[in-house]
């Protein structure tokens, strides 16, 4: 992403999310790559899996 403002605001906003540093970095990287057209479906699926939520599906 060439646009510094956009880059900065994305990073700044992601920083406020209650997620691990690792996830935040992955999300930022994913968005950067997405703008470069350099991602696959599995990348997004992997990112979703990394989101930490309470498992409440009954087995």
């Amino acid at each position, binding site marked *: 992403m060439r*646009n510094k403002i956009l880059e900065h605001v994305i990073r700044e*906003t992601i920083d406020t999310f209650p997620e691990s540093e690792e996830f935040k970095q992955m999300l930022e990287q994913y968005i950067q790559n997405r703008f470069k057209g350099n991602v696959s479906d599995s990348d997004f699926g992997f990112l979703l899996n990394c*989101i930490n939520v309470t498992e409440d599906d009954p087995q």
Partner: protein
Amino acid sequence: MKMIIQELEYQNIRRIGALKLSFIDSKGNPIKNNFIMMANGTGKTTTLGLIKSIFDGTADHLKSKEIESLKPLNKNVERGFFSITVKFDDTIYKYKLAFDYINKKSTFTCTAPSLTGGGRELSRRFPDSIKDLFTQEFVRRFVFDGEQATKVLNNQSNEAEDAIKYLYRLDEFDKILFDNNTILESIQNSEIGRGTDQSLKYTRTQKDKLKKTLNNLRSKEKQLNLNLTDLEDVQADLDSKIGGIEKKFTDLNSEKNEILSKINANKSDIDNVIRQIMNLSKKPCLISPAISANMYDLGNHMTSLKLPKSSSKDFFLQLAEQEFCICDRRIDDGAKKAIIDNAGGYLGSEQQSVLNIIKNKLMQSSFDERLNDEFSKLKKYKTKAYKLGQELENIQNNLEAAGGEEIIRAKEERISNLEKIGETKATIKKLVSKDINDEDLTPENNICKAQKELEILDGKIASKTKTNTALKKKQVMEKYINCIKDAAIKRLKETIIAKTNNKLEKVITDDLIKIERIENYIVLKNKDGASEGQTLGIAYCYLGTMFEDAELEFPFIIDSPAGKMDYTKRRAVADIIPTVFNQLIAFVTSTEVEGFANRFYSDMNTKFVTITATKDETLMHEGIDFFDKYQKEHREEN
């Protein structure tokens, strides 16, 4: 990604037989600023239209009427083509639109080394990283015209906001949200075996139905936005048409007023000359040389009357003393008495002096040309009055033609078009409204309510398919992406406003123009609007800021960049453009050279091309000398 236009090539397009416009130097390096002056009717608008249609994909389905309009009128040719050679970073793509004038069909081909089938495909292709970018919305931001520029300040338009969305590719966030939904669905579908009861089937059917409705609502919104753009274009055309007629009308009116004032002045001249004629007519000697001669003779004859010096009473008193009258009759006492009694009743000294004056006047009466001169003047003024009368009649006919039915029709169309714009906007507003308390809004007519309903159904399905975790993750991701998107739009707007305002200080020096906020369109601080020249200045500063900061380096292809800007603003804009655009290809008219194109005369990385046309052919002239000479000779025409 850097995009450079390397060449445009024409063959048998309207008046152009064969023409290549190259925007690279002999070493293959791009030329930064390119000015092309095309004589009227040589295809400036056609060129811009073809470039747009190739990039935005509308060239794939040109109508037979559009193809027919490209066919040269004076030549019997069967085929023609228009091509654009573009360099994306290091890869060259050539897009060719070939026309079969016999069958009124067009064929699109794209040639690039990376493409399959020997590097040639019968479809529009772009580098992968930007392949989805070339929509109509995006292309119109870099293949530009003055009409588009004025939209940024038009409160009927979303142009200012859309320009941010498309040039910064913020729609990419919408695509992430779409993928987010798709993944959840795919997980839920894969879990279908876990829930096969009727209620799940029913919920899924409901969801499918609602999804269909939501898709329809989104398609409708997209279509309505396209319709709105078309309606706004029609509105701009109508405004321009009405403006043109009114301008013509104003010109005609001022011509009429000028003629009326000439008629009044001429009438006053006629009155003066008639007055003069009346005065001079009191001197009959001026009527003709013969009358003058007769009068002189009369005066001369009056000298032989030999009237007494003192008075005529004395004459009669003296006469009464004579034996004989001047009529040779004897004067007896009775006659003597009668003469003496009546002597006072005849000419006295006063009358004598009058007679003397008359005599003198008659003697001095001589013919000259003054009266004839006045009659000549009167004749001249009468001829002038006749001509002015005819001119007035003509101008009134023209006024009727200019401001008559045509303007009435155009104004009616404008009102009707405005109503359509209003209706379309109201429908869009209803479609996209987020007012959950509005009872008129239902999942069937509102995207937000349909989405909410879909979320409820998603929850039910997640529960039944035991995919609550996946749903939660989807919802969290949705929240994050929306959050980033909103923050990005807000920050971009703030930065763009600040940077544009800085540029505006340099461009518009004769007025305090500042952008207050961007709310679909640009809202100015303490101002309801701007002049046409100011609007262009604001639009370039705004777009310039966005091009300057956008991720992609695009060429800026523009028709009539200087338009009606005054020289000060032109010079300021001319100084800004090279700093913000990667490549400038400007199609200019001869009036746009002064204060704009000529600012680039000393720039080594600038090319000047002039396209002239004879009845049978189009000629290309490269270089400043011809360009400058041509504009000086033809600027009055524009």
